[in-house]
């Protein structure tokens, strides 16, 4: 049984002029425990929406999302919130650290919503986690006094502090330089593999995406698997497209109309 399982998931919103905008179309995706999956795509193709649905921050308009085999539609709002806190860790592009709180307080923040022992020992657990990401000596430092890489390390520590089963990273290196981005990703990979958490990364950066075991491309709301380790890449803007693009079994054939962007060589 897969940890996360999206089947023919569609997410649409009604625009002010009453038109229906489909952000995701027939997305099918499975993520197993401990897997590292990367999704690449241009801005506005629905990557963040996909991540929000996976992280129970948003819900599909159509299709089914199963979390450990349980359709999330059957879960109450409270249960979804509880599972979001317990099973998912989020790493955001802009770090999203809580202002005015020290690194330790930021990492301890998710434990405020944890039950029993984790709640009462939150500061000790947070200190341990910061130590694991190499910031054991910056516990009482305010985020604004930390470098971008250090801030993202704090964000990673915060995402992992409740021992989630899935880490959802939305452009985790987007605000970092290349070298720092690689360091942060190496850390994320390492900790995810040690803790056995699945890692779903959304990124523009091919080098970041290439660290994953499986790769997908999201274009016009349609998710298609790609192999960044194999074939030569074609590019649309900063996103690779591959001649050997393979559809997931059972995935709907995307209807990309005349308005689809032309593929050009860089």
């Amino acid at each position, binding site marked *: 049984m897969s940890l996360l399982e999206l089947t023919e998931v569609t997410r649409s919103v009604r625009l002010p002029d009453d038109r229906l905008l489909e952000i995701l179309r027939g997305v099918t995706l499975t993520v197993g425990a401990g897997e590292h999956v990367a999704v690449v795509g241009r801005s506005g193709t629905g990557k963040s929406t996909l991540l*929000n649905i996976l*992280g129970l*921050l*948003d819900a599909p308009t159509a299709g089914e999302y199963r979390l450990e085999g349980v359709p999330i539609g059957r879960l109450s*709002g*409270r249960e979804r*919130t*509880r*599972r*979001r*806190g*317990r099973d*998912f860790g*989020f790493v*955001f592009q802009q770090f*999203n650290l*809580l*202002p*005015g*709180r020290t690194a330790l*307080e930021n990492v301890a*923040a*998710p434990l*405020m*919503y*944890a*039950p*029993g022992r984790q*709640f*009462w020992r939150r500061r000790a657990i947070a200190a341990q986690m910061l130590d694991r990401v190499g910031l054991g000596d910056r516990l009482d430092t305010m985020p604004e006094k930390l470098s971008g890489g250090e801030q993202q390390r704090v964000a990673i520590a915060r995402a992992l502090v*409740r021992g989630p089963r899935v880490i959802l990273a939305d452009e985790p290196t987007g605000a970092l330089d290349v070298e720092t981005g690689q360091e942060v990703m190496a850390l994320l990979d390492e900790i995810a593999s040690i803790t056995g958490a699945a890692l779903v990364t959304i990124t523009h950066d091919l080098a970041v995406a290439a660290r994953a075991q499986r790769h997908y491309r999201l274009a016009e709301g349609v998710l298609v698997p790609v192999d960044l380790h194999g074939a030569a890449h074609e590019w649309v803007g900063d996103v690779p497209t591959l001649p050997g693009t393979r559809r997931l079994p059972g995935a709907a054939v995307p209807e990309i109309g005349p308005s689809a962007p032309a593929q050009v060589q860089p």
Partner: protein
Amino acid sequence: MTGVVGAIVEAWDELRLHKLRVLLALVGVAVAVAAITAVTAAVQMLTQGYAETLERDSGRQVTLGVDAWPQSEQAAAPTELDAAYARALERYDITWASRDWYTQVPFRFPDGTRRVDVRAVDPDLAVMQRISVEDGRWFADADADAFAPVLVVNPAFLAALGLDDLAGHPTVLLGDDHPVRAAIVGVTPQRWQGETPQAMVLYEQLVRWYVPAGTTGPGQPAPTLKVWVPPEVAGDLSDRLERDVAAVLPGWQVSVWDNRGSGYSALDGAARWVALGVGGIALLLGGLGLVNIALVTVRHRIREIGIRRSFGATSGRIFFGVLMESVVATLVAGLVGIVLAVAVIKNVPVDVLFGGGIQDRPPFPVSAALVGLACATGVGALAGLIPATVAVRVKVIDAIRY
């Protein structure tokens, strides 16, 4: 359990982070609570002062007074009166009692003999009517058996003797034809400007050494018996005393009065309502300021709320957290207000400002402090409702991107 504790910890963290904002918002609340508490305390002191003034004149609650007048020459002898009083006290097991007889007695002053107003009393009267002695002492039971009468006088009496204090153990001749030397053992405080010389003496000693002429016989007043009794038995005892004393004193008219309902409870009630009204309005204004600032703050924290939702914070928890910020803040402000009120009440001689020392200074009104604190917390909860509702309506995804 962890949910509630967590919400309180979160609320406290928020307040810690935004000290200045909280401080500004809560000044009004703290001042309002301080006003409610301090004014209530002041009103209690005013009431106590007023009550003590009344008690100095008419005795503590409830004092019964037994008055008796001989109606004819055939009436029972006045000596029967003391025996009748003593029997009544013993029969009803009355602890606090004193005879109280207003008369005039001649004293020999340096400028000649003068008749001075004298109260002939028993030692219990000092407690019953809050008679204090600023120099020397009050009467002791043993004084009744002393060889010479002892006196407690007012400053005007002492001044008439050309003295300022009791350092020289002053004495004065009491009586006219066969005077007796009386020792002055205590001086009461002056109650008003221009007091005439007055003295108090033990009843038993006065009647032993001097009986004022023309104070016995038909129509002449005999000493009043004052008794201090619990309010619940006052009514019944009043009837019984009148009946019992009249029964053993044929030819005497006996009447019993009491000092119940002397009027200070009305003052207490009115002043309390004024204090609560003023405090309530101040608290309301403080609460409005708090709502205003809390709303602005929540709008600045939309992103943070979104991030917390991503951690698994339920909408209920967010609502409770924001509400608790307000409640915890006003609770702290309320405590500050109470400390402020205590400082004022303890350091400003409120009782003196209200015209004279208070013998039994009332304790700090804990009930008023608790009411103030409860009101502040209530205002905090009300003020927190609006921002908490705004916080819950935040869409998580939008908030994270905010």
